[in-house]
């Protein structure tokens, strides 16, 4: 499974757009890119997943360049409740990756008023 590298922490203010970039130089052809969010004292929660180009849902957007060696999670107009740890993971389906996910240390996002 490809290893990911992301900033340990980021600060932002309410109403700003936040972009968190993840590096995954060894991503394999079958790998998807998945982002999770974790609040204190809770389990991680799935945010978004993509394979290439751009994916958007009601929570975030995910930008993946053509070489797929990095990806950027974009959170539009953050609020205080977006303060959390954000994890970037790469991997394939449950069939060909043994079900193993590698969670890195994540990015601790702090949103200030």
């Amino acid at each position, binding site marked *: 499974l490809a290893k990911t590298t992301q900033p340990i922490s980021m600060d932002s203010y309410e109403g700003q757009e936040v972009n968190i970039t993840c590096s995954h130089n060894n991503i394999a052809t079958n790998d998807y890119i998945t982002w999770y969010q974790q609040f204190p004292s809770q*389990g991680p929660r799935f945010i978004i997943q993509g394979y290439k180009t751009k994916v958007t849902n009601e929570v975030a957007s995910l930008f993946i360049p053509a070489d797929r060696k990095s990806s950027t999670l974009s959170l539009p107009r953050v609020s205080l409740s977006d303060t959390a740890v954000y994890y970037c993971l790469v*991997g394939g389906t449950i069939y060909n990756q043994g079900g193993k996910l590698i*969670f890195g240390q994540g990015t601790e996002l702090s949103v200030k008023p």
Partner: protein
Amino acid sequence: DVKVTQSSRYLVKRTGEKVFLECVQDMDHENMFWYRQDPGLGLRLIYFSYDVKMKEKGDIPEGYSVSREKKERFSLILESASTNQTSMYLCASIPTGSSYEQYFGPGTRLTVT
């Protein structure tokens, strides 16, 4: 909504005790996982299971065992608890064929004294 529940949110046990952590999911998922989460180390996979009575070691299985007698239930067992097993334990499940959208329980914070 998928629901993953864990038997306890907080647990305090003594060194040497046998500890059972239970996880139940209500969405008929084939695959279930146990992680532990420690500050600075992120989430680490202890064991996972593809099906009833099947189990696979994760990255840190030492000191743990698991049981999967029913599809919806996955138990983590600490045969003889030690202080270095003080941690947050998280259970997750995912349906077969899904590309890594795991659903997590709320976690059990275990303290071994």
